[in-house]
């Protein structure tokens, strides 16, 4: 009896093969098997024969929308920066997308990074991706040699141990609190659709931090980001971070210092989070790829909460609608400018 993931993998291969074979798309962005337990490799497949490489499992933590603009460019005929756009329709690219990734494709479309006409979304309902870190923490100090995935459990084996653990207990925090597991865009459906999940408070972790005193919050912030090595994996794994020159890299003017000084590191994380406000879909890629295990996702999650409360918007949920923070409306909330203390004094 094949597992859910084995069935999905088979379906992905079949559909990808068909899309490439009949010329609908020139490339498919998916995942291939990783060389270590709990890893997969984002892979671009360009021929029907290569589709056998594609896999699907609970460790697909990187957001494939991140690759979309570049792969779209790679299937265009080569041209110089000043050459005109070639005439006629350009080749299409298929991409696997769960709920959050598909919302990122919506955001990319709203921000004119991606031409939706050229994207074939292979929609997969997410069952929640497993956090490799959570699994490793369960076996602290012991090396995990294989992880076998069953439908509802993981079987984790080492040289001298074997344990079966409930899968959901190891699912990433962002997936556990996610309410939109099903893709908002689907051109080719993989597996069964999923219904919206009920979650009375997706922002519980944020509320907990907000509930602390300012000293405690500062202590949390300084401690959380103190181990950052400035490798920028969080930024580079993020489909929202596509600036040709990131503010941290700018030399003229230099906004942020380059050392591991706590002020510079903190500034990088805060500014990056603010750049993602109103655009972040809480896909969790930043947190999943951090080699130092920093929970920088808490910052974007806090901003997601604010954007939802101020504008009633969740990024990427309404394809046709404008982005909340790049569009001006006269009835925009002003609470973020007028501080509460000021508002009370001035009776706003």
């Amino acid at each position, binding site marked *: 009896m094949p597992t859910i993931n084995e069935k999905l993998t088979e379906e992905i291969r079949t559909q990808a093969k068909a899309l490439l074979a009949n010329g609908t798309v020139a490339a498919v962005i998916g995942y291939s098997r990783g060389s270590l337990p709990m890893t997969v490799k984002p892979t671009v497949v360009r021929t029907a024969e290569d589709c056998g490489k594609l896999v699907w499992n609970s460790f697909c933590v990187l957001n494939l929308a991140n690759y979309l603009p570049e792969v779209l460019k790679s299937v265009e005929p080569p041209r110089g920066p000043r050459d005109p756009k070639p005439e006629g329709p350009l080749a299409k690219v298929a991409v696997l997308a769960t709920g959050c990734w598909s919302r990122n494709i919506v955001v990319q479309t709203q921000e004119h990074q991606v031409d939706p006409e050229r994207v074939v979304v292979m929609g997969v309902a997410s069952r929640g991706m497993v956090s490799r870190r959570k699994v490793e*923490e369960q076996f602290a*100090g012991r*090396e995990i040699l294989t992880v076998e995935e069953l439908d509802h459990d993981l079987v984790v084996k080492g040289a001298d141990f074997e344990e079966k653990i409930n899968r959901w207990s190891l699912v990433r925090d962002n997936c556990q609190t996610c309410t939109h597991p099903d893709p908002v865009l689907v051109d080719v459906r993989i597996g069964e659709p999923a219904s919206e999940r009920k979650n009375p408070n997706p922002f519980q972790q944020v509320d907990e931090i907000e509930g602390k005193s300012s000293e405690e919050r500062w202590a949390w912030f300084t401690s959380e980001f103190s181990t950052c090595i400035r490798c920028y*994996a969080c930024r*580079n794994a993020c489909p929202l971070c596509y600036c040709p020159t990131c503010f941290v890299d700018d030399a003229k003017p230099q906004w942020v210092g380059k050392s591991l000084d706590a002020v510079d590191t903190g500034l990088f994380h805060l500014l990056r989070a603010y750049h993602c406000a109103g655009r972040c879909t809480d896909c969790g890629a930043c947190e999943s790829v951090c080699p130092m*295990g920093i929970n920088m996702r808490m910052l974007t999650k806090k901003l997601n909460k604010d954007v939802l409360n101020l504008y009633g918007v969740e990024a990427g949920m309404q394809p046709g609608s404008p982005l909340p923070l790049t569009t001006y409306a006269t009835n925009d909330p002003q609470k973020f400018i007028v501080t509460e203390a000021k508002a009370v004094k001035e009776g706003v």
Partner: protein
Amino acid sequence: MKVFRLSQTELDSMVQGWSQNRRVYRPAAGRQQSAQADCAPGWERVAGSSPLTVATGPSKTSVKTFLFPQPETMQTYTLKSSDPDKGLLKEPEKTTGKQIIVGLRPCDARSVKLNNLPFREDPFYQASLARTVMVGFTCNTMCATCFCDQMGGSPMGTEGLDIAISQVDGTMIAEVLTPAGEELIADLSLTPAEDSDINALAERRKDCPQADSAKLDALKSRDLNKLYGAPVWQALGESCINCGACTFNCPTCYCFDVQDEVVRGQGRRIRYWDSCMFPLYSLHTTGHNPRGQKMQRTRNRFMHKLKYFPDRYGPFSCVGCGRCVQDCPVNIDIREVIHDLLAVE
């Protein structure tokens, strides 16, 4: 060379003794809650008497942080107009006093030697090296991601260490390898190892995976341009997200950038880790970028480790610690890259 027998208590009190008047660092246990001000992420300063145990495999971050700190002050200066020395760059105050690194693995110790090839004339690296004493733990177990033996090292290797501590059949044996190591134990009364201990250690060393670089050394004689043009780079470059997780946690990546920092008229010129994965690394002021594409940058990192560095200095710039394999967000595995490159005719 002196060889001693150590109990866990003796080891702990020895390390604690060092920490009384010297800076002693060890790999942080588990997910570090907070980096200390004088210490790099992934390491903690030994204070108090907690027992010294080190998890299997290499530490989370590499030892290079102590030899090639992030950042290193190269010069200081003032920009205050009232000061006659305005704009005059001066040597920074020298950091003195020994630092003792405890619990590093043979792979990291070897990386210090390898980095010493490009840094052999570098005053800052040499100064750090001179004040660093390395007390390493050899490995009884190789992790699935370890491949030190293939890169010319060994899990029981002592190259680069001042004191090597091995566990052999439940006995802890310390080999004091250098004068700097001898200085550390000068005032201690330790139990000399029995001949049987020494024999057992030699036996273990003989049985463990040996440095066997014959297979990979074949790579060194491959034609540079053929490796450069190998088809493997395209797919790798497509997967790579060009972050610095591999380079920053790599013990043998040693590129640096230089920047000035000024706070209230007082300035310093620092060097700090850079990564050839970043587009800015090779960007000209004109806007031209010789490695403007992601694939070119991914290729450069591997070519540097496996071809350019050996062409220049002899050995590969890789000790097989496997950190990059562990930490790569997209599972780019240098062992697979080597495998694919060996297939290039």
